[in-house]
């Protein structure tokens, strides 16, 4: 079996195995879940290391027919964009399985659904067939609803479940109609994205069709990624979700929508992109400003993280909307970095919730003294969240700023202000309330997590954030050739000003220099 298929099937097969194990073999169930996600993570690290940057075509490709008469196939492969995402997804999935020890009832069903989520989203990341891409993502979505409903917390979890279910289903349906429209309008009788891109290069989709398909995909995918103003499901949902689910959803599953824009909407519908990308750019700035602004007012840690995650995806949208090589590269880096960060954040807040009994920040204080490990990680996560150099988020955000500067300087000013200044306000304030100040009496018994499995969950995510922050070349070298292709195909229909071309060249060189310098 090829490595990518193993990455997908390890969690899915483990889910099948758990289904037939009696529910009282709790230790065995947990071990199976941990091992299967570990297998995926190790193989993901290996394929990431073995990936040859800039090589033409897909790597680790595997193909087989699924439904022949409709042109649906199972086609997996890696390019520079999804290789990092798979790594991130597999690591976060492993971490989510590690921290799920907090679940004490109906573990069998919990791990089964968690593994379905993990396998589903990893499958979506590596798929190059539009049908499989959508299919795997939906496979990951259904467990989300059930898990928030069954293991969720808070009084409004039922409301949160329905909100997230209906919102995301609406987004997914728009995407489905859009993808089918792409299939029909291309007229190539295939759902294979590689073949569709080849086909579109010769016979583009009619411009009138592009103009209505692109917004379908943009808003459909956008809803799935909490594009402002369709973001309200995210904070409520994450506040109600159990830790592992919040980690997987905010960190990994959400990235599906952005990947969809990169894979389908931008390369196949360049004309539509030209008309609609300014709208997306404006909404992205809305994400940054509104998400950050609201995050400042939150007193609940989970809601704060939810809104900050809404703000952060704004960077990714902005990078994509700029459609420059730097912007697209930056967007992908942000996707990966934010995945690690969101996973880490929700894991930490889940731990604090167990220690404190609530995620209300008023009920915390002085915890650094009792929780040196968790506290140190929280400080690092918060610094990463407000874009401090040394973490992968900084690299992505900087690249996005450079990329977007070419297109519209006002956006960048607003985005930088909202992302960096407002971000710093709420993250540092959270650090102060939670970790500093006098220790509250009722928290005197708080202790750090024990056990290697448990600690490795947090450690893995932080190491990844730092590694890609200090050596961003690891990511950028892989992403850039494909970002170039995306921005190139999508920009074909767009009249590029000579000055713009020149600008991209110089900033690109500057960024590379900057990367080298930091290394």
């Amino acid at each position, binding site marked *: 079996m090829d490595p990518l298929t193993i990455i997908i099937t390890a969690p899915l097969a483990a889910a099948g195995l758990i289904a037939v194990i009696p529910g009282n073999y709790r230790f065995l169930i947990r071990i199976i879940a941990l091992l299967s996600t570990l297998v995926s993570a190790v193989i993901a690290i290996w394929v990431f290391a073995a990936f040859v940057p800039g090589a033409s075509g897909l790597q680790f490709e595997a193909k087989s027919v699924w439904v022949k008469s409709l042109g649906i196939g199972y086609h997996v492969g890696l390019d520079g964009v999804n290789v990092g995402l798979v790594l991130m997804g597999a690591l976060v999935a492993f971490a989510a399985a590690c921290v799920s020890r907090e679940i004490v009832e109906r573990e069998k069903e919990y791990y089964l659904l968690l593994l379905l989520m993990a396998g589903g989203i990893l499958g979506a990341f590596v798929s190059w067939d539009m049908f499989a891409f959508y299919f795997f993502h939906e*496979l990951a979505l*259904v467990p989300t609803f059930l898990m928030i*409903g069954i293991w969720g917390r808070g009084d409004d979890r039922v409301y949160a479940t329905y909100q997230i279910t209906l919102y995301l*289903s609406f987004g997914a349906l728009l995407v489905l109609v859009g993808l089918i429209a792409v299939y029909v309008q291309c007229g190539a009788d295939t759902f294979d994205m590689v073949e569709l891109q080849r086909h579109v290069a010769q016979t583009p989709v009619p411009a009138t069709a592009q103009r209505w398909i692109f917004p379908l995909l943009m808003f459909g995918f956008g809803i799935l990624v909490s594009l402002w103003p369709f973001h309200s499901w995210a904070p409520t949902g994450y506040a109600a979700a159990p830790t592992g689910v919040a980690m997987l959803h905010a960190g990994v599953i959400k990235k599906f929508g952005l990947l969809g824009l990169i894979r389908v909407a931008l390369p196949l519908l360049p004309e539509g992109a030209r008309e609609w990308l300014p709208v997306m750019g404006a909404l992205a700035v809305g994400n940054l400003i509104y998400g950050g602004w609201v995050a400042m007012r939150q007193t609940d840690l989970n809601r704060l993280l939810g809104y900050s995650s809404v703000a952060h995806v704004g960077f990714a949208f902005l990078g994509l909307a700029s459609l420059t090589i730097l912007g697209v590269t930056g967007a992908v880096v942000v996707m990966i970095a934010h995945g690690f960060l969101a996973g880490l954040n929700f894991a930490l807040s889940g731990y604090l919730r167990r220690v404190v009994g609530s995620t209300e920040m008023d009920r915390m204080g002085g915890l650094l003294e009792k929780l040196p490990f968790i506290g140190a990680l929280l400080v690092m996560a918060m610094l990463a969240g407000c874009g401090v150099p040394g973490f992968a988020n900084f690299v992505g955000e900087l690249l996005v700023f450079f990329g977007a500067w070419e297109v519209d300087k006002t956006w960048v000013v607003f985005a930088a202000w909202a992302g960096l200044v407002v971000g710093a306000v709420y993250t540092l304030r959270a650090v102060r309330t939670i970790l500093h100040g006098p220790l509250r009496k009722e928290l005197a018994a708080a202790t750090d997590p024990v056990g290697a499995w448990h600690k490795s969950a947090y450690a893995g995510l932080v190491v990844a954030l730092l590694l890609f922050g200090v050596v961003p070349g690891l990511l950028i070298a892989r992403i850039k050739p494909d970002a170039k292709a995306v921005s190139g195909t999508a920009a074909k229909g767009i009249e590029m000003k000579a000055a713009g071309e020149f600008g991209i060249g110089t900033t690109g060189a500057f960024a590379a220099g900057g990367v080298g310098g930091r290394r």
Partner: protein
Amino acid sequence: MSGFSAIGLELAVVAGALAILVIGVCVSAERRPFLSYAAALFVGVVLLSSFLVSWPERQTFFEGTYLLDGLALFFKRLFMVAACFVLVLSAGSSMKAVVGVEFPVLVLIALVGMMFGASAGGFVLLFVALELVTVTFYVLVAFARERRRSLEAGVKFLIIGAVTSAFLVLGMAFVYGSSGTMNFDQLRVASIDSGRKQLFDIGLVLVFVGVGFKLAAVPSQMWAPDVYEGAPAPVGAFLASGSKALGLVLIVRVMNSTAQRGETLWAVLLAVSAAASILYGALCAIPQKDLKRLLGYSSIVTAGYLLIGLASGSKAGIGASLYYMTAYMFAVLAVFTVVSIVFGAAEPAEIAGLGGLYKRSPVLAVALTLSMISLAGVPPLAGFFGKFLLVKSAVGSAGLNKGLIILIGVMVVGILISIYYYFGVIRAVYWGASLEEAKPITVTRSERIVLIMLMVGLVWLGLFPGRLVRASSDAVERIVTPRQAIAEVIK
């Protein structure tokens, strides 16, 4: 192939029905479930034997009355599968209170009617088959004689059924009067002078109303919630599977023979009925507290989805409807099986009563969850692929018929609302307040086998849809779509 071998399947089922009637006289009351099993086994054998015979691709018999083609065979097999499950379900312990000798016999007779209906080559057989099915169902719906709800459902079904039959007869008369033929093949080429075109159109609308009764499509949808709620669960299952499929195939037949005369009429008729069915069913389903009643409304929504496939007017669209019908059948049979085990066949099925079901019986909880997810159209189950094919065919034809764009929008809204109420059922199963006297539920071996087969069907059709996609596209291969017919006329 001679006429009598062409109707071999139907004759076999008739013979089986008579045999069971005779044997039933000699069987004591406690052993009556045995009759249902025997009937199910018999239908299963007939079903398997239908795969051994080499059928003609398309041939008419009895002077064009009886038509044998891929579409007819597809539906005959579908009806037999449905009847098999319904018969096993009716043998279950929950039906002991109501089942009599007549029950399996009536199911078989209804099955014969459906099988003849699938082969209707003209309005005469269409009407006779439809009445055979409807009249049988009058009895079946009211079968739980001691239950007022069942009787009430029977009366409602009878009245609305009789009214829509009247519409159908009047419509047939108008079509015959304006075209001079009752035969579908002749109707396709018959010349209608412009003075009678209006009569013809009115006739078609009336026929649509009459046949739409089986499908539970607006405007003949009124009966569905009451009857689903009141009828014994196996009967509800048969109404939602076999009877609904019969409505679908009859509308396909009528549409294909008349569409070239009234292309816009059909487009408008199908679009309006589909949109109204989806919105009416979905909106009315939201506040429902009874699972069987909810299924009644969701069956109206389903009728709307099926009509979207027909409205797209292409072979792919009709094939998509066939696929969706099959997927729906598996899910709805599973739900009715669970309902009859949990609540008893003829009792009300309060959704709140499902609370704690996952503890009382994991198998039932999983079966109900999978069928709800499939009905909601979420991967990886059969219902998703059905909806995928429907959207695909509608988007594919949207260039030719702009109305489809609105229909796609309505469908998206319908799916969204349906996710809301289907997930309400899942919610009751897993985190609803459990009842105080909640005891484990025993599931008999035959019920367990039925449920597992249905679940495997749901997952299989979702993961490996290729075979059924091919079967449904083969089924519509030889029929003449309206668009082709119009192209021929223009030529």
